[in-house]
């Protein structure tokens, strides 16, 4: 039995068509990214068995959930998915404990891999257990919805914009729990979002949908560095690097992060040495120089220009540069690129004005 998630989906819904052929890793967070109406939610609903179509193929880590040619379509309630909806529907006739146990009780005891206490602890909702539905905040509702989904011991977790209905403060409240899921669960997670910062923070693998068509798909770092795509991310074009805290400078309150691109100094966030750190570098925060300059910019690294492409605005251009073992995007004006006479293969210095530790 092959690991991984195999999707062959060609669905027509009136004027809208959804086409996706995907072979995805069987673990980690798969971000499904795209503008509203691109078919992200439809894809998730189809995976969960909530769409009435019988066509298409879906295999999840060796289990066949759907195969149109063989008329196989496992009904929604027999698919081991945990689904967290954008607007969580909590059953008002049950208290919080009852809501959490609803799915748990329907999973045979031998197949349970998540205990109530475990899910309650993971999402910090112990104090809510005996509460009724009304009076719960949006953030609390989503945390209960996530715990409820986890308690069905899913083999696949589907998160459909779990933060979209929340204000910024509530987002900050729930996001750490999602990161914890990412770190502690060994099941694949589909994470639908149209917020680039959430994707950069949580995803390992990226699926880009546009108007129902698959635009791109691949590991997060490589996909973000592709020049034919960042246009879709607009202002937020940039790359994500996985690094590790290598040094802390108490005097200047800085931390050195070892990344595939080289050493980067960031503000010291209190992380211990050796801790993993995910770093995001936006294209607009990267500038390029021919010669090493003495400037205020802390992080200057040697780089090689790989590719030059047009950007969303005609005045701008996007550069893909190889920096150490990694690739970084830089957004320049076309005029600057012309004055520096940049061409693929040139050796330059990149100056990184801002590095965000996620």
């Amino acid at each position, binding site marked *: 039995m092959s690991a991984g998630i195999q999707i062959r989906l060609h669905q027509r819904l009136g004027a809208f068509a959804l086409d996706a052929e995907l072979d995805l890793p069987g673990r980690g967070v798969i971000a499904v990214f795209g503008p509203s109406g691109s078919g992200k939610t439809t894809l998730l609903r189809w995976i*969960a*068995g*909530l769409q009435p179509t019988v066509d298409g193929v879906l295999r999840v880590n060796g289990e066949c959930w759907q195969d149109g040619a063989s008329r196989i379509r496992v*009904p*929604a*309630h*027999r698919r081991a*998915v*945990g*689904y967290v*909806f954008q*607007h*969580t*529907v*909590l*059953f*008002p*006739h049950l208290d919080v404990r009852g809501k959490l146990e*609803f*799915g748990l009780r*329907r*999973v045979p005891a031998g197949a349970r891999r998540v205990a109530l206490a475990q899910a309650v602890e993971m999402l910090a909702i112990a104090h809510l257990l005996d509460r009724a*539905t*009304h009076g719960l905040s949006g953030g609390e509702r989503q945390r209960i919805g996530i715990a*409820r*989904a986890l308690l*069905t011991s899913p083999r696949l977790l589907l998160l459909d914009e779990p933060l979209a209905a929340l204000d910024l403060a509530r987002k900050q409240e729930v996001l750490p729990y999602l990161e914890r899921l990412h770190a502690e669960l060994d099941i694949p997670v589909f994470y639908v979002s149209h917020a680039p910062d959430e994707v950069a923070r949580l995803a390992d693998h990226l699926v880009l949908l546009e108007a129902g068509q698959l635009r791109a798909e691949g590991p997060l770092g490589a996909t973000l560095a592709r020049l034919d795509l960042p246009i879709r991310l607009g202002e937020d074009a940039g790359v994500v690097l996985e690094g590790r805290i290598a040094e802390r400078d108490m005097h200047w309150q800085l931390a050195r992060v070892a990344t595939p691109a080289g050493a980067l100094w960031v503000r010291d966030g209190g992380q211990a040495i050796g801790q993993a750190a995910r770093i995001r570098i936006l294209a607009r925060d990267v500038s390029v120089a021919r010669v090493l300059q003495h400037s205020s910019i802390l992080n200057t690294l040697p780089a090689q220009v790989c590719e030059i492409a047009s950007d969303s605005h005609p005045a701008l251009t996007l550069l893909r540069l190889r920096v150490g073992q990694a690739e970084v995007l830089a957004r320049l004006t076309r005029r600057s690129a012309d004055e520096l006479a940049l061409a693929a293969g040139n050796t330059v210095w990149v100056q990184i004005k801002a590095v965000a530790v996620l």
Partner: protein
Amino acid sequence: MPGPDDWSAIRLTLALATLTVSLLLLLGTPIAWWLARSRSWWKGPVGALVALPIVLPPTVLGFYLLLALGPQGPLGHLTQALGLGLLPFTFPGLVVASVFYSLPFVVQPLQNAFEAIGEGPLETAATLRAGPWDRFFHVALPLARPGLLSGAVLGFAHTIGEFGIVLMIGGNIPGRTRVVSMQIYNHVEALEYGAAHALAGGLLVFSFLVLMAMHALGGSRRVWR
């Protein structure tokens, strides 16, 4: 003070209403569920058929039921073939007529309640491993509780208040088919206004209380999200 005949009519009426509502909840719940969820072409005609007793004079319904249940009618043939005899002018006949007559009063609140649930809770339940029957009994029915209650109360009250259809099918037989509304009619015919008052006033107060209870139920209805 109500006499022994009055008490007999009251007992008969309560028995009729209780039995009718019980049957209607069994029969009306699947009909309401189907009407709420189906996209079939038949939804329109079936919905109209269920609603007919609201607009038809009870005598029209009673007349056709009398023909259908009679010795020459299709239902009459059936009941005779099953060894049940003929239903007109019997208590079971009254129950059958009441079930038809009060059907919309149970089905419509239930249908509205089922429709108000929407797809969200049922889909959520499906992703939480609940199969179709499980979803119906443990999500749809509990969420439709206000509709279930108001349907039961309305059906009960409506059955107690019926007259025309009882007259056509029941035939005003003391102790067997003479319900409260008939008994009031008999008292008035006999110019026994005092006795008529006792029953009529009781019915009036009962109906008022029922509608008050309905209002209270409606007020406690909570948003399901």
